[in-house]
């Protein structure tokens, strides 16, 4: 089994982040793709860049790897500026979305490629390759060709291939995109465990929020070239910093309201505290709402339809004001779900759990 990075580098004071991204910006012609992004990543952390297509997450990854140059700001590893360092010298390992395995080389040749390029003696290289393959549980696959491997196996070869370099930072570009749903879930857990065992600092890029919530120590939600919020999965989910983050992660219900005197009135009659004044947008998660009989409250509506998501039933309720509110309820065995077109009332379970944002 391979060990994580050991040696002098490990003892550097933990105040120097492994990867320092400082005010990085990048433009393509007139379009600003990255706008003043800053992020520090500590040793052994798994950080995910999360956002929709075009938000700049892949661009940032490519800048860290060295495929593209940033127009402004700096990228440093262990405190050393990477600007003058070309791609093939940076201590990063990239796992591509398509895995980019060399089709004309065997698994062993793929995994040993970096060693060959660096001129490592053959015997030593062979041992390292064997060790890497063992780490990803692919011992015995040395002589197969990529075309003969399944998606999951290809991914593991791609990982082993960069592991032999003992990179300071592991960069993964939507690595689970090519796998089907069931395999995805298993591989995500496995990969996180592997990374943690090896103590590798890693950055994932994805548009899949579930993947981000599963894999990461911290999530950086990006939008239009900016980092909107960086926080752990729980905090991102429970205390989103902006309406955008709230909308992107998990399901959310939004409605407009007026805030005055330190609080804002909720549709069901309760109040939530806020420091904002004037027009605001209120967000409540479906699991923070509860359905009751129509007579019970002032916030009423009719059930449009419901669907099952794992252990929950998600109801879509059309309210009098025209909003569609999603409410989640635990499934109870043998209890029938509320029928379509039934009249219901909605109650906020915990007003403090609502998020309040300035109106856009």
């Amino acid at each position, binding site marked *: 089994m391979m060990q994580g990075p050991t*040696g002098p580098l490990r003892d550097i004071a933990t105040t120097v982040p492994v990867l320092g991204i400082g005010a990085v910006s990048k433009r393509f012609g007139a379009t600003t793709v990255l706008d003043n992004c800053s992020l520090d990543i500590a040793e052994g952390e798994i950080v995910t860049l999360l956002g929709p297509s075009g938000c700049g997450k892949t661009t940032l990854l490519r800048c860290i790897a060295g495929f593209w140059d940033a127009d402004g700001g700096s990228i440093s590893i262990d405190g050393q500026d990477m600007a003058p360092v070309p791609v093939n*010298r940076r201590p990063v390992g990239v796992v591509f979305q398509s895995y980019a395995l060399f089709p004309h080389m065997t698994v062993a040749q793929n995994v040993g490629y970096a060693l060959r390029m660096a001129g*490592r003696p053959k015997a030593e290289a062979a041992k390292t390759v064997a060790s890497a393959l063992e780490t990803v549980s692919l011992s015995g696959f040395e002589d197969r060709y990529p075309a003969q491997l399944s998606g999951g196996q290809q991914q593991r070869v791609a990982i082993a291939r960069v592991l032999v370099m003992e990179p300071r930072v592991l960069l993964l570009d939507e690595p689970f995109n090519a796998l089907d749903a069931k395999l995805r879930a298993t591989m995500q857990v496995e990969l996180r465990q592997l990374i943690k065992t090896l103590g590798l600092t890693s950055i994932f890029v994805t548009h899949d929020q579930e993947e981000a919530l599963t894999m990461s120590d911290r999530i950086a939600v990006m939008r239009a070239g900016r980092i909107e919020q960086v926080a752990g999965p729980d905090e991102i989910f429970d205390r989103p910093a902006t309406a955008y983050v709230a909308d992107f992660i998990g399901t959310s219900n939004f409605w407009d309201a007026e805030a005055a005197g330190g609080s804002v009135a909720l549709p069901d009659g309760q109040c939530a505290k806020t420091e904002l004044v004037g027009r605001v947008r209120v967000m409540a998660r479906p699991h923070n709402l509860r359905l009751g009989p129509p007579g019970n409250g002032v916030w009423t509506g009719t059930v449009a339809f419901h669907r099952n998501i794992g252990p929950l039933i998600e109801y879509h309720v059309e309210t009098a004001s025209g909003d569609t509110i999603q409410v989640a309820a635990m499934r109870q065995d043998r209890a029938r779900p509320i029928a379509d077109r039934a009249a219901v009332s909605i109650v906020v379970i915990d007003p403090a759990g609502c998020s309040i944002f300035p109106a856009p």
Partner: protein
Amino acid sequence: MTDAVFTPRIDAPSFGERLADALLSGRGIWPAVPAIIVLMVVAVIPFVILLSLGFSDIEIARGDIVSQTFSLEHLTKALTDPLYWITFQRSLSLAMSTTVLCVLFGYPVAYLFLTGGKWTKRLILILTIAPLLTSGIVRTYAWLVILGGRGVVNQTLMGLGLIDQPLRIMNTHWAVLIGMVQIHLPVMILPLIAVMSRHDRQIVEAAENLGASRLGTLRTVILPLSVPGIGTGAALVFTLSYTTFVVPQLLGGGNYLNAATMIYEQVVFSLEWSKGSVSSLLLMVSCLVVLVAIALITNRFTRWTKGREA
């Protein structure tokens, strides 16, 4: 291992390395420079010289140009020479007929390819590509054999008792035409196949599902979509048949003068350089005119290929 597998040299590359990078990586234009130089020297400059020769009066002494003065004399002489007109017109009509016949005979082959199975497709590809790998002379010779006085056609016809005396097919316009069509068929078929294969097979199935007969599908769906292929094939066939040298020479007899044979005669035998230049240039220009015409016609029929308006 304390000495990490990599002692990554996290430093800037040396000058030598950056130079190699710039030259070899293909990011810059450097890898193409040798080709550019060769093309300039062997193609562009000679062509410019050709142009200049056509537009000048030259005096040659001992195989070298002694003087060269600008003159439109050769050009005007050529344009007013009835022989030139006849020759070019003959080349033109030959090329046009060849092109049209190639379209008529080649399109069904492409249709067969489209609707055929795997082995049909393979067979067609083999029969179409193989001729292109043999020389024009070999292919023309075959027709010599077939159309000659004692050739296949005559022998068969006489053998069957249909005629008493051999037909004189060789050394006629017809012999040349037949040879031209057969020789240039592959050049027509291949672009057609390329274009037609690019479209989703399901378009044809959709048409059938919507009630079109096979002929209707061909007429309303397949044909319009294959127009770019017809355009490309026609352009290629026209260019080749307009400038072809071998076929008219061999199948048309020594007196069959067309543009290419005329140029050959002027350049290699009479050593009339300026005339040869003018003829070559006229050949090129007239060829280009027709190609532009083909492109315009094709364009009119392919308005659907234009993308969304920005």
